[in-house]
């Protein structure tokens, strides 16, 4: 539970923003919790509200969902799903593998991870998200304008988690490769920077793996 408080600090305000947006876009209030439960992916939901308000064709929506959420494919490599044994719990854990849940689990050292801790954190995250959305809907009529700048909490959270993950695993080359990937992505494809950056980062890691894997193989061949 304690793991999720800091994530909640990022998630809850974002949920409020979503609720406010739904009301401001003239969409029915139940859409905020319904979106949160069906997608459970913050940045995508904020994007979708605008698209739904203008009745964007379903095919365009499907493509957007695919591109924006494609990053989850990469989480599978290092998300500690093997800790969760029960099939239902496992299914829930996969469904609730959001950025924040991945980030919090990735910043923990191996020895401190457990199925109970992981699931409690994920359930708490979902509660914050749905609760934030409902609070935002309720605020929608009352507040003249949302408080600007609360979305920075998400950036601060990821920054802090990067620092913690770096402390438990000194992976400077990976950090540099990620930096290169995100820089190129921001310059070339600012609209879908996250998608491109992750793709580049994985490509660079695979290249690095291919380079480092060949060397010991040659040594054994020589000997």
């Amino acid at each position, binding site marked *: 539970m304690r793991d999720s408080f800091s994530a909640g600090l990022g998630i809850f305000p974002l949920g409020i923003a979503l609720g406010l947006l739904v009301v401001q876009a003239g969409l029915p209030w139940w859409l905020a919790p319904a979106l949160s439960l069906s997608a459970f992916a913050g940045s995508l939901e904020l994007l979708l509200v605008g698209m739904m308000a203008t009745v964007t064709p379903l095919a365009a929506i499907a493509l957007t969902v695919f591109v924006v959420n494609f990053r989850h494919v*990469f989480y599978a490599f290092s998300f500690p799903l093997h800790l969760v044994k029960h099939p239902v719990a496992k299914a829930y854990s996969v469904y609730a593998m959001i950025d924040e849940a991945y980030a919090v689990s990735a910043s923990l050292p191996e020895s401190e991870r457990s199925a109970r801790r992981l699931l409690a954190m994920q359930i708490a995250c979902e509660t914050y998200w749905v609760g934030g959305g409902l609070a935002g809907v309720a605020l929608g009529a009352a507040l003249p304008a949302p408080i600007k700048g609360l979305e920075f909490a998400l950036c601060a959270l990821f920054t802090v988690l990067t620092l913690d993950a770096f402390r438990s695993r000194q992976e400077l080359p990976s950090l540099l490769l990620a930096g290169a990937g995100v820089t190129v992505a921001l310059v070339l494809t600012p609209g879908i920077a996250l998608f491109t950056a992750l793709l580049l980062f994985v490509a660079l890691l695979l290249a690095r793996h291919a380079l480092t894997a060949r060397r010991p193989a040659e040594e054994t061949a020589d000997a």
Partner: protein
Amino acid sequence: MPSTSYLTAVLVIVFTITLALRALPFAVLRTLRGSAMARQLSVRMPVGILAILAVSALHGTITQDPDALLYALVSVAVTIGVHLALGRRTILSVGLGTTVYVILLNAL
């Protein structure tokens, strides 16, 4: 206002695609488990992915308020400074960093 059937269709599409993207890689990985590549990636990926998420969240913040670049950078520095100086208490670091940003953005 969009019809309820349209909204429902969107919800179904979003749920299906997102869940597939989260679940399918695990099924594929089962066949790769134990391979040196999968093991190496699982160690090397987290730090980089977190850094990318941090940068893209920063980018998103700045796109919302283009004048706020300096405030955002100051707030990131505050967040990092607090985190390293005051014993890595995540809630404190995130809370103070965000407070600084909100104050800078709204008061200046």
